[in-house]
């Protein structure tokens, strides 16, 4: 099958967003934006125990909506994220922090 000449009106995927380049094999879009690995701030601060009573600290990981901030945003390590999640859930059940904020 002959390759069609590229015409001026054609939109190529590369042209839409230079950060996105289609994968050769699957044709799926993949993000080529360089990733910066976030480091766990709780490891840095050497926190061994997250207390559910420490509301001020928990609040820093709860966005507006009252949800638990995901790891991909906070950059926490698995151990600390798990600790944090249990602490937040405990604090919720004794009404220190809301389940849903509006």
């Amino acid at each position, binding site marked *: 099958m002959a390759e069609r000449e590229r015409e001026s009106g054609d939109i190529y995927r590369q042209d839409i967003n230079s950060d996105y380049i289609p994968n050769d094999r699957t044709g799926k879009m993949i993000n080529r934006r360089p990733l910066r690995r976030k480091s766990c701030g709780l490891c840095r601060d*050497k926190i*061994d*125990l997250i207390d*559910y*009573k420490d509301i001020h600290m928990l609040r820093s990981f709860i966005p507006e909506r009252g949800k638990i901030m995901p790891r991909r945003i906070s950059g926490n390590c698995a151990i600390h994220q798990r600790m944090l999640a249990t602490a937040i859930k*405990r604090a*919720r*059940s*004794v*009404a*220190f*922090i*809301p*389940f849903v904020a509006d």
Partner: protein
Amino acid sequence: MAEKRTYEVVAILGPTTAEDWVSTFNKNVTELIEKLGGTVVNVNDMGVRKLAYKIDKFNEGHYLIFEVDGSGQEVAEVERRFRVNDNVIRYMTIRVDLQRRRAEKFKTRRANRLARRGQSAAARRAERAESQPAAEE
């Protein structure tokens, strides 16, 4: 009593409960735990706080946090009484000895790692000090 455990029992009382009622409640719980073979290590009376959401149509609650050492039997009994008591609008028990032990472990591990790192750095420094005069000669 096979092993000693530490629990944290949070009780939230309604804001309308009288002050002296709270103190007798406090005393009753402590006595009950002591009678059943546990010990109350600490009682944290946080006073009346605003609740993050309504519980039983109350916007505020009187928080009491008991730190209890024991087998768990006495905590179960205390919880049973909380359930019966209408002044207790919410309670929660947490086992804290495990997470404290875990924190302790993290601390020692970090200290060990630091010590090891310090050692290797010292070793490297010693090596460099040895090799440098040799290079000059």
